[in-house]
């Protein structure tokens, strides 16, 4: 009995804060736009009784989803988001793995300090950090000033408002999410495993590929999902750092919702985004479970 209550609690929590909002969004995505408040039709009226509920159901349709398929802006945005998120994840892995590796191999006394340095950016508002990148990347920004002063370039580099700026922003923002799980996997790695590999005839490089890399795989997978999933729906970074040609679905969603005030279409965009994300989320969960089993 107590066990049932304990299990029920998180489910109730998830139902209240996740499933119910999702059902509301789903319902809005099936409605039509209207000049009203709230700006969609039909409204659910419990006073109308059973008959009223049936009428309400009959007025719902998949029109908005059909609309998303006709306008190429949407699927292009989805594809571009997938591409940006995927590529950023790979870049973050490339940058994050050496950092995590160096941290895990650092002297024991240094590790807490290094770990804190990785977490330190979280103490500042995310928005402020993205704004400060505008200060660095803009034409008159710090980066261009320094490069001009050094004489490396003679005209300012146009980084701001390009996809490059978006990549820089995403990699910067999500780097800790990549570093931390890889670090925790590498930290557990027993040095004697590498010595054993060398003892059995591996060079240092092949010992890395045959031992270190596979043993940090669960950390790599966890890190990649932790970067990919939020990056896919990212909205602040592309709207602040990216130009008008950087299509990302998060930005499209925001524009539909606030600029066009088309709640039903915005909701449909959100529902599809969620469906796309379910696949990597499920894969991520399975990886976590496998990692736990391997440890236990």
């Amino acid at each position, binding site marked *: 009995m107590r066990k049932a209550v304990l299990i029920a609690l998180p489910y109730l929590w998830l139902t209240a804060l996740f499933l119910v909002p999702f059902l509301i969004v789903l319902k809005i995505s099936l409605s039509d736009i209207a000049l009203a408040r709230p700006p969609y039709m039909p409204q659910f009226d419990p006073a109308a009784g059973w008959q009223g509920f049936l009428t309400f159901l009959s007025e719902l349709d998949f029109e908005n989803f059909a609309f998303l398929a006709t306008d190429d802006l949407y699927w292009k945005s989805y594809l571009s988001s997938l591409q940006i998120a995927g590529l950023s994840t790979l870049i973050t892995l490339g940058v994050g793995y050496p950092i995590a590796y160096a941290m895990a191999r650092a002297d024991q006394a240094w590790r807490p300090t290094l770990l804190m340095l990785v977490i330190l950016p979280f103490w500042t508002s995310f928005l402020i950090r993205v704004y400060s990148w505008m200060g660095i990347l803009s034409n008159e920004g710090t980066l261009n000033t320094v490069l001009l002063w050094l004489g490396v370039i003679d005209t300012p580099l146009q980084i701001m408002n390009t996809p490059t700026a978006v990549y820089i922003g995403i990699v910067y923002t999500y780097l800790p999410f990549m570093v931390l799980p890889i670090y925790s996997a590498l930290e557990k790695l*027993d040095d*004697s*495993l590498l*010595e*054993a*590999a*060398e*003892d*059995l*005839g*591996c*060079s240092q490089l*092949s010992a890395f590929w*045959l*031992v270190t890399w*596979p*043993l940090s*795989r669960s950390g790599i997978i966890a890190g990649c999902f932790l970067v990919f999933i939020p990056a896919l729906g990212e909205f602040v970074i592309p709207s602040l750092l990216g130009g008008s040609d950087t299509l990302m679905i998060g930005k499209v969603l925001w524009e539909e919702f606030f600029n066009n005030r088309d709640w039903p279409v915005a909701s449909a965009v959100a529902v599809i985004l969620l469906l796309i994300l379910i696949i990597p989320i499920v894969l991520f969960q399975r990886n976590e479970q496998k990692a736990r089993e*391997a440890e236990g």
Partner: protein
Amino acid sequence: MAETVFAPWADPAQKPLIEFCNVTKRFGDFTAIHDLSLKIYEKEFFALLGPSGCGKTTMMRMLGGFDSVTEGSILLGGHDISAVPPNKRPVNMMFQSYALFPHLSIWENIAFGLKREGRDKAFIDARVDEMLRLTRLERFAKRKPHQISGGQRQRVALARSLAKAPKLLLLDEPLGALDRKLREETQFELMDIQEKTGTTFVIVTHDQEEAMTVASRIAVMDEGRLVQVDTPDQIYEAPNSVYVADFIGDVNLFPGTATERPVAPPPAPAVAPEVEETAPIADAALHDSAEANTATQRRLPAPDRKGEWLYEKIFRRFMGYRETAPRRLPPPSPAEIAAARAPVAPAPAPAPVAEPIRPGGILIDWAEGQPPIIAANGDTAMAGTGVTFSIRPEKVTIDAEKPDRPNIYKGKVIDIAYLGNISTFHVELANGTMVKAQMVNARRLANRHITWNDEVWIGFTETAGVVLKG
């Protein structure tokens, strides 16, 4: 028999497999190994023994190539391997933590080294199967390391390090993680496998019992130096220093001064003063034994006078049969009792009486008011210098009655450590010295005739101990 079969170190014509030539190893300011030279021969089971921090692990890591040599060189089969990286040495190591690859199955773990050699699949299959058979792991080939027990993991680690058929196998505290029973079994298994494969084994351990069990030779180390390199029996019976004697097993140490002992003494002098000195004690012993005798009689089931009267007046009427009982089996005579009890107090065997004390050697004055220790095997050259007499507890006898032995001291039992098969008695001598004496528990515990606070005699022969310098 065993000595004649295998002792390459005694044969100057033999070429050593491994040779440490004046090897020094420093870590910063700390010198881990001091100018050390050592030869290890093919097919040896060589143990590096010492307390933690003595440099034994450093020696092993230098052999494996994980630590470089600061000065000197290490030769393997006559070639200097100081500069050869670990992956190019014909040496494999079994790690203390086993270092099994957790992401690979047992089969893949064992095949790991062979695959790196680029062997063809058929060869690898055959070799891995052979190793699995050798270590009795066939059933576990497909499992992952975390799915098998500690003892099995240990065998996988052994199989993996043997798979490449190395010239030399290094074992770093290989049995440290196993419980006692499994460890003992595995020790014999290790010896068996070593014999079957003919590989040279170098084992690092801090467990002297383990080293004694498995090794053909033991090197006892202290602070980066070799103290003694010898066979287990020599290390135990003839340690060359107080350090070795104290490190290997249990030992009683008597520091004192040596004086030369006459080579062919008249039978008495060495013993005579001793007898005089201990005369009152001998009296006491006599008294003790007399008391013991009455005690024995008192213990026999015989009614006293009151009991007799009670029986005659009351019980006799309805317990008539009891009357005949004592008559049918009369109480044994004191002589009979003495005969029956003789084996209980281990007879101060008449043999030593007949055998004269071996002449020569030295006398060791070790304490005020105690007779000197007679050490007939002591080196007379040590006369006049400070020496330490060392004797193993199992070579010290303990008796309730005064025994006839060259060296005897009276003391009191302070403590008894019951270890099942043996008991160790801690006996305090008159001057406060604690002596450990060991006795095999041939009888049941209940029959033990020496107990706490008993006055006892400890004794040992004139050749039982070893006289060490300093």
